[in-house]
């Protein structure tokens, strides 16, 4: 039997490596491939060499090891890529974060949210308004100070939208959230005194590291040193110096400002924290409540699960994730306009989640990456075809639902459920990121 999830992940990895090869030459491609293989081998090696009695050990270290390896590889990425791809890397980070959050709502709790982009907008506009760039100049806060405010905004709006609507049937919820997304966009377009209308907010201050913070300085200089050490050893190990050597990034500082790399690293850090938080939630009482709600809400309610409470949990976590992504977006691109936050964007994020596999954390990250890459891959096509590129997302959604509802890298529990067959619906409790991330979904 062909193990499609592995094939899917393998294809994706191959495409990624070939992109690096095309951009930075074969050496960089080889290194990235090595890092990916190493990340993939860690849990496999553990399975192979750890004695059976040591499963507890494996369970404890498999996840942090592969998570660490994965993010280590991602953090090294800026060494090879140049400015154009750096922009793309930030974009990927933003969408991966969004997909991660929407995955909690749609994948874990089974609530179809078609207005998810509204929370992204709320995050971005919170940054725009509270940083003093908007018409209301009542505060001039930095991005770091705005994070908690944006989180509060997310929780408030998530609760305001969720509390009345989460009682409804799933399909009603979908259309109400769709309406909510449009309302937020229309309000941003028309409430000129607060949001500057359809022109949007411009000149949003970019993020900056507080001068006084020696902690941040320490992290940044450690990273620069690490990067330099890596590059020097790479150049030393490969003969024929001068040709094909990596540039030393000393000129490329890690100050925020207009430089994309710090945003990328910040996004990586946020994604890593969210992965850990969401994974732990999903493996806790909350996660079990979510799957109970998703599988049969009436039964869950009858068994004493406070469904509304846990649905609100999922909704709020999704909302806050999107808000954080929105704040970083606003700080990065420094100007926001209502047109960015339309329904299509919501559907693109949904496609990312569906593509990666509903209810699958690593799948969401893969999906977020894939949907951001797609327009880049279509760059060489005629403009008209590019214009209609969202049709591809539509086709992806339909085909995935018909042929592979569990996504390219499925979560075991979710796969059995979405197939609708009589398959075993309960994977082991520990089934989560490590195996799927590295080895392409456990079967």
């Amino acid at each position, binding site marked *: 039997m062909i193990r499609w999830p592995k094939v899917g992940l393998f294809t994706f990895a191959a495409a990624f490596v070939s992109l690096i090869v095309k951009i930075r030459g074969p050496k960089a491609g080889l290194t990235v491939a090595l890092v990916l293989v190493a990340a993939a081998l860690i849990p496999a090696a553990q399975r192979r060499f750890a004695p059976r009695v040591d499963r507890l050990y494996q369970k404890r270290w498999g996840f942090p090891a592969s998570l660490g390896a994965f993010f280590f590889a991602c953090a090294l990425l800026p060494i090879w890529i140049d400015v154009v791809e750096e922009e793309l890397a930030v974009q990927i980070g933003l969408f991966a974060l969004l997909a991660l959050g929407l995955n909690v709502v749609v994948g874990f709790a089974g609530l179809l949210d078609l207005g998810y982009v509204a929370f992204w907008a709320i995050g971005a506009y919170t940054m725009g308004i509270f940083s003093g760039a908007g018409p209301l100049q009542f505060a001039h806060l930095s991005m770091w100070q705005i994070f908690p405010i944006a989180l509060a905004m997310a929780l408030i709006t998530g609760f305001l939208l969720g509390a009345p*609507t989460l009682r409804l049937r799933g399909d009603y919820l979908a259309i*109400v959230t769709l309406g909510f997304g449009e*309302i937020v966009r229309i309000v941003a377009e028309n409430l000129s005194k607060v949001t500057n209308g359809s022109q949007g907010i411009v000149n949003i201050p970019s993020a900056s590291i507080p001068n006084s913070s020696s902690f941040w300085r320490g992290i940044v200089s450690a990273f620069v040193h690490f990067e330099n050490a890596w590059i020097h050893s790479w150049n030393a190990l490969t003969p024929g110096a001068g040709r094909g050597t990596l540039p030393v990034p000393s000129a490329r500082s890690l100050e925020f400002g207009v430089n994309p790399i710090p945003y990328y690293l910040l996004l990586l850090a946020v994604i890593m924290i969210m992965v850990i938080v969401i994974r732990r939630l999903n493996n806790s009482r909350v996660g079990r409540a979510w799957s109970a709600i998703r599988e049969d809400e009436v039964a869950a309610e009858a068994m004493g699960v406070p469904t509304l409470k846990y649905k609100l949990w999922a909704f709020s976590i999704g909302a806050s994730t999107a808000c954080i992504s929105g704040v970083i977006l606003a700080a990065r691109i420094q100007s926001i306009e209502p047109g960015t936050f339309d329904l299509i964007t919501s559907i693109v994020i949904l496609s990312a989640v569906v593509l990666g596999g509903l209810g699958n954390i690593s799948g969401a990250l893969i999906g977020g990456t894939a949907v951001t890459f797609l327009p880049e891959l279509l760059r060489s096509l005629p403009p008209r075809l590019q*214009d*209609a590129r969202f049709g591809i997302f*539509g086709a992806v959604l*339909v085909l995935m639902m*018909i042929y592979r*509802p569990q996504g390219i890298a499925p979560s075991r529990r979710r796969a059995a459920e979405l197939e*609708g067959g009589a398959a075993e619906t309960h994977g082991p409790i520990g089934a989560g990121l490590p195996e799927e991330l590295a080895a392409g979904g456990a079967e």
Partner: protein
Amino acid sequence: MPDCLTTQLPLRLVGGLTSGSIYALIALGYTLVYGVLQLINFAHSEVFMGGSLAGLLALEALTHHGAQTNAIFLFVALIPGMLAGGVVAIALERFAYRPLRRRGAARLSYLISAIGASLLLSNIVLLWRGRNFENFPATVAPVPILTLGNVQIYNRQIIIVVAMLIMTAGLDIFVRTSRAGKGIRAVAQDPETAGMMGVDINRVITVTFLLGGLLAGAAGVLYGMFFGVTRFDVGFIPGIKAFTAAVLGGIGNIRGALVGGLTLGVVENVGAGCCGNQWKDVIAFLVLVGVLMFRPTGLFGEGVGAKA
């Protein structure tokens, strides 16, 4: 008393009834499909768009051959528009829903598949026809034929309202009296028992989608006649509004869709008069949220089967 509730009110009422009639025609499709499958056909807005586009193409073909457009052409355009709506609706059912139904997929899968189908269809049209608004050849010249107080009622508005009333009545009679209508009501009440009694469920579902598609196609042509333009995403806003209308009247309930559509049209038009036109869509969404919060079964209850 604000202006919008006094001097402007008659004008707003007439406008509301006109757009409400279009919402009602689309809402019937949502309601029929919901009655039978308990499924919201998210791609129904694309059925509307397909009908509108087919009407446009037919009219363009006719005017291309040198014909002078006149009112008769509206009825000529209605036929391909309705047929296209029906074909798109049946194709949707066949390709986006039936494979899932056969597998007994989760509810979420249907919704995602429908959203995907909607996006795919509108982008195919975008690819084919481009992004610009296309002018609908003028069929019925706007002539005021009735003056009530300070408001003039145009022939176009009367055509839309009358067409909607005729089609809704026809649908109501069809579902209540015909053999296929009996099948629809049977499947709506209890699909399993209906299947055991020899009702061909797949056929009933196809007929249901066909009926919804015919009406949405007609709505598309009427919309094109009234507003004079169409393009790939023309169905989006009317689609959501029609869904709101269907919920407002009680989804699954044919007469409810009629009343819901007219009510929503009037409410949003009067509201737009009070708050400004840019808030029109927001008002409609707030109506939807309000209805779902306080009376999720709609004004007339969810008449599945018996009342359908």
